[in-house]
């Protein structure tokens, strides 16, 4: 530490910064990474506020510009909150990241509004999008971006877009649904999501549900419409309902750890889905989750691929023709020939 403190003349490196933070906050600093040129420090929720305070007040750090604050859906583990701070004097940036307490059901993260003014709206937005509570914030309600009576938390992964449920993606294939091998990538809801508040959306969701229900009759597997139906308020029903598929091992383990029943249940359910997904990936079919059946998908993907190739071929031909017409030497994208022309003209 001493050599760090002695260096007043230049900005601290990420390692030095981490060392300094650990020196002051001890166990509250969990880990750090500098992947993708982004210096991220994981902080325990208990040290969240202190870490931000330190980053602002410590003269070696002097993170004075509050860049942004965001939430990230961390799957079964609940939600992460990231605060990005920047120092105008040293030119350093730090991303403080913490995992909210309370899992998916009641995520809570201490507010930074008394450290940085800018945290005010950022936290309101995060609350609006994820439903993360920020104790100490002067007022998270009314919702900052969505309509006041909006139901659900849009950026949670279990919030489904009603229009998408009702209407398939009009493009060649569904980017969110297929990976490059044509397997179904599914992001299953762990807890309830809800359609938008407006009648049209509701009607579309209703319609989707009906379609899904009829599909379910014919084929096994759960449709996405079901999940759209399960809103936050319906969790109670879920509890009473005959035990949904969940990973019994995980459930027992979590109960033994003293977690609340609801959290354990949702986590266990998520764990099951994870397992299923992993299993599906191994066999390469992945069709057990989706009513459509995985068999058609690769062929669809192939078709799309072929079509794309054709189009690319046609485009290339056209470009060549055009190049020939205009008397250009070469295709624009191959070499920088047009650019060279430009420079000649300029001179």
């Amino acid at each position, binding site marked *: 530490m001493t050599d760090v403190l002695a260096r007043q003349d230049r900005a601290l490196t990420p390692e030095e910064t981490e060392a300094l933070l650990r020196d002051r906050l001890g166990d509250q600093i969990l880990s750090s990474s500098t*992947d*993708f040129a*982004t210096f*991220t420090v994981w902080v325990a929720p208990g040290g969240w506020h202190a870490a931000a305070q330190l980053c*602002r*007040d410590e003269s070696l750090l002097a993170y*004075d*510009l*509050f*860049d*942004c604050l*965001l939430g*990230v*859906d961390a799957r079964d583990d609940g939600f992460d909150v990231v605060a*990005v701070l*920047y120092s*105008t004097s040293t*030119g350093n*940036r730090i*991303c403080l990241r913490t995992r909210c307490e309370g899992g998916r059901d009641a995520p809570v993260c201490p507010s930074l509004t*008394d450290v940085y*003014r*800018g945290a*005010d*709206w*950022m936290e309101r*937005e995060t609350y609006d*999008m994820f439903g993360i509570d920020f104790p100490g914030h*002067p*007022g*998270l*309600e009314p919702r*900052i*971006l969505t*309509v006041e009576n909006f139901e659900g938390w*849009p*950026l949670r*992964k279990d*919030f489904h*877009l009603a229009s*998408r449920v009702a209407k398939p993606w009009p493009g060649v294939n569904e*980017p*969110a649904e*297929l*990976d*490059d091998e044509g397997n179904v*990538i599914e992001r299953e809801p762990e807890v309830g999501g809800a359609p938008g508040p407006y009648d049209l959306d509701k009607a579309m969701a209703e319609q989707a549900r009906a379609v899904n229900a009829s599909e379910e009759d014919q084929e096994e597997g759960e449709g996405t419409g079901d999940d759209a139906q399960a809103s936050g308020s319906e969790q109670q029903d879920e509890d009473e309902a005959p035990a949904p598929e969940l990973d019994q091992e995980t459930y027992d383990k979590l109960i033994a750890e003293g977690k609340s029943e609801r959290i354990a249940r949702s986590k266990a359910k998520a764990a099951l889905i994870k397992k299923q997904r992993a299993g599906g990936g191994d066999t390469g079919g992945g069709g057990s989750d989706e009513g459509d059946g995985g068999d058609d998908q690769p062929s669809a993907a192939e078709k799309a*691929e072929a079509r794309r190739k054709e189009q690319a071929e046609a485009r290339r031909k056209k470009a060549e023709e055009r190049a020939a017409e*205009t008397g250009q030497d070469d295709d*624009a*994208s191959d*070499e*920088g*020939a*047009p*650019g060279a022309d*430009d*420079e000649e*003209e*300029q001179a």
Partner: protein
Amino acid sequence: MSDLSTRERVHPGSAPGEDFHLEIVGDGDFQTADMKLSIGPAHPATHGVFRIVLEMDGERVTGARPVIGYMHRGFEKLAEHRDYRQIKALVNRHDWLSGFSNELGVALAVERMMEMEVPDRAQWIRMLLAEWNRILNHLMFIGSYAIELGAITPMFYAFREREDIQHLLESATGGRLHFTYNQVGGLKIDLPKGFLRQSTELSALIRKRVPDYHDLVLGNDIFQARTVGVGPLPPEVALSLGVTGPTLHATGVPEDSRVTEPYLKYGEIDVDVPVGENGDSFDRFYCLLARISASLDIIDQIHDHLPAGPVNTKLPKMVKAPEGATYLRTENPLGQLGYWLESDGGRTPWRLKMRTPSFSNVQAIPYLLEGVLVPDAIAVLGSVFFVVGDIDR
């Protein structure tokens, strides 16, 4: 860092949940209360759908509470349902005045995660177009701010210039507002023949016209009477709020990621960042206008540097960022645009957070509006340059 103590009283804007309590004074027939004036969401001064509730004593504003979200289109959610190529069409629409800079940020973030080398020529062209886009954006605000102060003419002049620039950019990209010209790994196509000549000519033309705005707006006595000393923003408050761009530069802090964290090739050229002194409305406008000249300087330098070569790299069949997260910040016309891109290794981002300049800048409005007159409130509102889509996303 005693930024919070500069104004002890928590003003209504910082407490969104609390509505105004109108204090009733006097008794009998002489009871009076402060007036609550709701400006927007469709008010001429709010250029877009921005609403602000003012609590007033006579014509003096005693409290202000911005209400946003009227343009919330759910970009961040939609981005999770589009693949990396499709996102471009979304991101260049959130700040509709700086489409190119928006898509540039996403392209850079994905390239960083995929550890992709972008050809030099593409990088220089990106800079060139980004600077033209900056001018395009600033011209709009020069016009709209003048309109808010009651001068209608600068808008027409600004659009005369804007049309010229849009025509230039259209020749390369095919778009007037939303260019969709960036690609992961480079650009869609190379510049058309003769673009550089046109660009050079236009740069000279705009440079010749910039003094018009100095004469017509900045140097105008009434303009100065309306803006000098109106709505000063102290630098420490600005930083704490996350205010960036011309609004921050006006306070005297030359924080500009083109200089402090150079991306593309900004490290190889001189970037001039004009700064103000008092952070008042006049300084904010001054910085905006001076940035046009600064951008023209950059454009001229780029013309000299532009190398030949390819403009894009060969992409894998499927653009997929590896698992992990990155935060990338670029200097957008209105301030610093940050993208937090988190990927789970799939074709779509797991989380794309847009840290938009307008969102942070608008947070400063309640602070700035306290105690000013209604006409000054308009002068302040206009001088904190924002695009509503950029606030609400």
